[in-house]
């Protein structure tokens, strides 16, 4: 695609801007900022990726992944302010899921150990793990609040914190996994996944694109399950003290 046609594609930004203006939606500023940000961020990533691919150094790959984890942690921790040490729990979760998936992919030689594969796949894995963390933390915070009485009742009857928090924990893990599973059921019917579409447009063989997309889908299933469960089991003990008493929940934001 030439820069001319890319510039012409800005027409697609002008349409919502015009609509927002006429209908007084007040979204002009946000749309404008979003457009500028996406241009700068994606171009920057493009140049950085070119550099990293050409250098072929693993140090840069690790640096990129570390950056991804840092950004994902920064985004997700806002939803977990009520949980002590949430930052390290998130870092640990993202790190674990990244190492786990890459170990399987590279260990079984499913993908080659090159930056072209490691970086985009890591991006998808960490990005999805972040979304799952946010879904989980949102749900978990609201579940523990709405079920506070039941949790305390179980403690008062002689239950351990793990027993007392079991239901809210399981509910939150389940609820956070549902969107991933549901969206995989209709994939290909309603929408073509972005990455696959991109590959096909770039001229790849559709069957190959599908095979690769399937790999990613399976990866994301693991990512989703491991993220919610790991984060859940890392988080719940911080809601209690050593006398098995419920700590006050700080409500963030």
């Amino acid at each position, binding site marked *: 695609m030439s820069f001319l046609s890319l510039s012409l594609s800005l027409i697609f930004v002008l349409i919502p801007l015009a609509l927002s203006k006429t209908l007084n939606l007040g979204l002009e500023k946000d749309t404008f900022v979003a457009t500028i940000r996406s241009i700068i961020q994606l171009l920057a990533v493009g140049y950085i990726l070119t550099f990293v691919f050409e250098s072929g150094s693993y140090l840069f790959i690790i640096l990129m992944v570390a950056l991804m984890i840092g950004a994902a942690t920064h985004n997700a921790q806002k939803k977990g302010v009520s949980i002590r040490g949430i930052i390290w729990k998130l870092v640990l979760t993202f790190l674990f899921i990244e190492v786990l998936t890459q170990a399987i992919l590279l260990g079984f030689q499913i993908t080659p150990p090159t930056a072209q594969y490691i970086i985009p796949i890591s991006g998808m894995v960490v990005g999805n793990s972040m979304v799952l963390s946010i879904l989980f933390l949102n749900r978990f915070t609201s579940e523990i609040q709405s079920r506070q009485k039941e949790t*305390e009742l179980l403690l*008062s*009857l*002689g*239950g*351990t914190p793990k027993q007392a928090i079991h239901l809210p924990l399981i509910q939150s893990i389940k609820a956070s996994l549902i969107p991933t599973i549901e969206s995989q059921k209709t994939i290909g019917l309603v929408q073509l996944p972005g990455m696959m579409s991109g590959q096909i447009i770039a001229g790849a063989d559709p069957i190959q694109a599908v095979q690769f997309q399937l790999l990613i889908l399976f990866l994301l299933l693991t990512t989703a399950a491991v993220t919610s469960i790991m984060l859940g089991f890392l988080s719940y003990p911080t809601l209690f003290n050593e006398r*098995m*008493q419920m700590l006050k929940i700080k409500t963030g934001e």
Partner: protein
Amino acid sequence: MQQANVLTGKAAIELNHVSYSDEGLDIIKDVSGSLPEGKITTFVGPSGAGKTTIFRLLNGLISPTKGDIQLFGENIQTIEPTTLRRTVGIALQDATMLRGSVYKNLAMPKTLQNQELKKEEAEHLLTQVGLDASFLHRDVTDLSGGQRQKVSIARTLVNHPKVLLLDEITSSLDRVSTSDIEHLIQHINKEFAVTIAWITHNLDQALLIGDYTWVMMNGELIESGSTDVLKNPVNPRIQEFVKGEWQ
């Protein structure tokens, strides 16, 4: 005058200069007193006096900020929390139910210990608190406030606590049910020598069932002793409170 009586018998629970504050708010202020072993002690006092907070301290749901609580001579901070909570059972003020059937609720104390509650035992508990055995498989969402209170009492009994804390357990019951529960608690008290602490807003009830009473106001223990202190109070603050309650 009567205060000495409380201390003649052995104390099941003793509080020594117990204070509890939360977020800078003093909720319990330097309370010292005891629950005589094998007796029924009622807790009276206006709303917000700190009665429920004392119960939460005794059951170990919260810990004193200052002072200490002894259970049969042992500091409760040194007792394993789940053991403490089974020994000092509590029927919570709002009779919180776990979603599901009455049986699930009754069996929970056992479930938490990976044990089973026999159906006959559950049915026996239900009839004890004045509910028909057929309630066993009802969903708790279909129960009235009073029926929930009954289930809540029965559920607390499953652990066979040595000390039983009852937080306004008859507040939604009619006269007949209330009197049934009073008899049941008196029976448990006599038969199994269970020490009872009972929060009530009903002074008639306190006089009827209580051997001893604690009068609490504003986080303080104003007076403790034989229930007679409610009949002829000397302390003007209690006089005023008692006068208000009788009206």
